[in-house]
């Protein structure tokens, strides 16, 4: 098993180098003059020459790439020209919003999708099954941005005044200013890395509210996440429901299920204990594969629900030609993606012993 993990780790190195290369090239190819995009159309040539020299944009491209790769390996993503601060700071600011949205969407799709799939499989070909699978087909075909806007319309306007009313934008209601958990606990640190990590965690509003025991903030944060999470989570939810159904149907037809029934296992324990465990295996893959869908959905949803996360800043930076931010965020997202896929593969070897023997 360890050799398998090592082999997988080694095989992702070329991919990581490729990612560095692609992000570097992409940011260089973005048309337009970065100097005048930042300093304005009226910047003189002298000012621009000085600007380009200061940011190393006048060196040969290969040198720029080597400098860039070296900096990334040391964990330095450079500075944002527009915000004039390190990109790692921007990551600490923006990534928690997207992460919270992605995790909420994932939770939503798993806790709704799996039971939907199980019920469909157990009541195969019944009306419930047909309706669920129709709903799943429609769910997969839903444009995320449309769903988001329609959810906002229904829950913020049509249901206004009812208990089901939900806020259509932002992460917290105005006036709520929760304290970071590390301040409440009186933690201080001199290491900038640890400080960054603490700041990052405290910006996950829901987690921070739990750690500081502020239940009013917790509810408010959860309420603000419901609509965006539903919008982002619907496509993966439909995929998960379909996958659970088909793998449950596969498993329910196996001999050992018949054996379990013959020895007198109750229907409930047969479904939940004997079948579900084995049916969950392909789900790990589907959830792993849906990560791209979650992230792409987050980019679209953030602009609709007024969340200032990764999607928002990427979009803004592209229009402002802030090379560094585009590069930095794309690299981090891609690396994150590779690592998650690696974890999915490795969890497979743990869950399914047959893979290990390969």
């Amino acid at each position, binding site marked *: 098993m360890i050799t398998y993990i090592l082999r997988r780790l080694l095989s992702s190195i070329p*991919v990581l180098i*490729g990612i560095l290369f692609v992000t570097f090239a*992409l940011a260089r190819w973005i048309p337009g003059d970065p100097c005048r995009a930042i300093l304005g159309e009226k910047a003189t040539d002298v000012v621009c020459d000085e600007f380009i020299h200061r940011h190393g944009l006048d060196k040969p491209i290969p040198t720029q790439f080597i400098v860039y790769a070296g900096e990334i390996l040391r964990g330095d993503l450079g500075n944002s020209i527009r915000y004039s601060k390190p990109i790692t700071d921007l990551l600490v600011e923006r990534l928690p919003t997207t992460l919270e949205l992605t995790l909420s969407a994932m939770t939503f799709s798993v806790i709704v999708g799996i039971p939907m799939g199980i019920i469909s499989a157990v009541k195969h070909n019944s009306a419930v099954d047909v309706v669920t699978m129709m709903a799943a087909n429609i769910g997969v075909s839903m444009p995320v941005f449309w769903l988001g806007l329609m959810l906002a*319309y229904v829950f913020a306007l049509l249901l206004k005044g009812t208990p089901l009313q939900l806020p259509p934008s932002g992460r917290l209601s105005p006036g709520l200013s929760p304290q970071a958990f590390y301040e409440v606990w009186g933690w201080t640190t001199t290491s900038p890395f640890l400080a960054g990590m603490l700041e990052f965690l405290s910006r996950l509003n829901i987690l921070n509210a739990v750690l500081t025991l502020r239940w009013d903030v917790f509810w408010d944060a959860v309420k603000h996440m419901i609509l965006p999470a539903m919008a982002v989570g619907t496509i993966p939810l439909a995929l998960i429901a379909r996958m659970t159904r088909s793998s449950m149907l596969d498993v329910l037809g196996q001999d050992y299920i018949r054996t379990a029934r013959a020895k007198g296992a109750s229907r409930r324990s047969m479904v939940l204990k004997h079948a579900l465990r084995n049916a969950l295996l392909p789900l790990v893959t589907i959830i792993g594969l849906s990560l791209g869908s979650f992230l792409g959905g987050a980019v679209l949803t953030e602009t609709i629900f007024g969340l200032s996360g990764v999607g928002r800043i990427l979009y803004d930076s592209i229009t402002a030609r802030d090379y560094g931010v585009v590069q930095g965020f794309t690299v981090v997202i891609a690396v994150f993606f590779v690592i998650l896929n690696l974890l999915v593969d490795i969890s497979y070897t743990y869950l399914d012993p047959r893979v290990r023997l390969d």
Partner: protein
Amino acid sequence: MSEQTTQVAKLDAEKVRGDKPVTLWRTAWRRLFKRKSAIVGMVILGFLVLVAIFANVLAPYSPYDVLIGVENVKMRQSPCIHLLGCPADQPQHIMGIDGNVRDEFSRLIFGSRYSLMIGFTTVSFAIVIGTTLGALAGYLGGWVDNVIMRVMDVVLAFPSLLLAIVIVTILGPGIQNALLAIGIVSIPSYARVIRSAVLTTKQMEFVEASRSLGASPMYILFSRILPNSLTPLIVTGTLGIATAILDAAALSFLGLGAQPPMPEWGTMLGAERNQVFTAPHLVFYPGLAIMLTVLAFNLLGDGMRDALDPRLAQRGE
């Protein structure tokens, strides 16, 4: 046992009568028509194709005509349908008026042309390039395979929509560049599908036979191996059209794809996104149209997967 014998006898009898031979494609067609979801998909798709072809006839107005001074209508007016009690002296606009005082229904009808065009062109582009790369990788193996597939891995390492956004930014916003970007990000899935199909087919006896008869490698690849690797490609392609339409709509929604005044559904929706609370009809209908189109391709693709799966064919389903 006896059942089998009668079946064989029946088959022989058919042969004697000189019936058409049973081919994979014929059985696949027959099985496709037995699946309700596939039929629903084909019906929606047929309807959309008809709408796209006869858009000139069906649309009551031109998609670009501004109706100021032509009719007594207000900007973003709600739908007016005579059958549902809208006063008869008012002009009928069954999906209302958009932000530039144009008939939303006519724009929606013309939009079907763009959606279908987007779906087919991006997927054809991705299939041509993806098939070539995948076939070369699978057939030649070795370092060619390694280089091609590692590049595909890198492309797959980015969330597809994100990569498409970055590519469009480099090329500049516009429908052609959006199509190209979506085409590029979908190449790896076709390359992978074809590669694995080629790897399996390559080892079959009929390929060996061709080779021993002295056929050239290119001939073997294009006339022996590729035609036999088509089934998974057709399924992936149909499902891929659905994804391509969704992604293109998303790019247009962000202002990176089709540009106004083009009546493209994503662009129409994006232009009115801030009016969702005051004029929900302008968001609702274009989105519904996108969803139905995508649904049609998804249903058809799923149906095809079931119909073309040879394992199901052997079970006689």
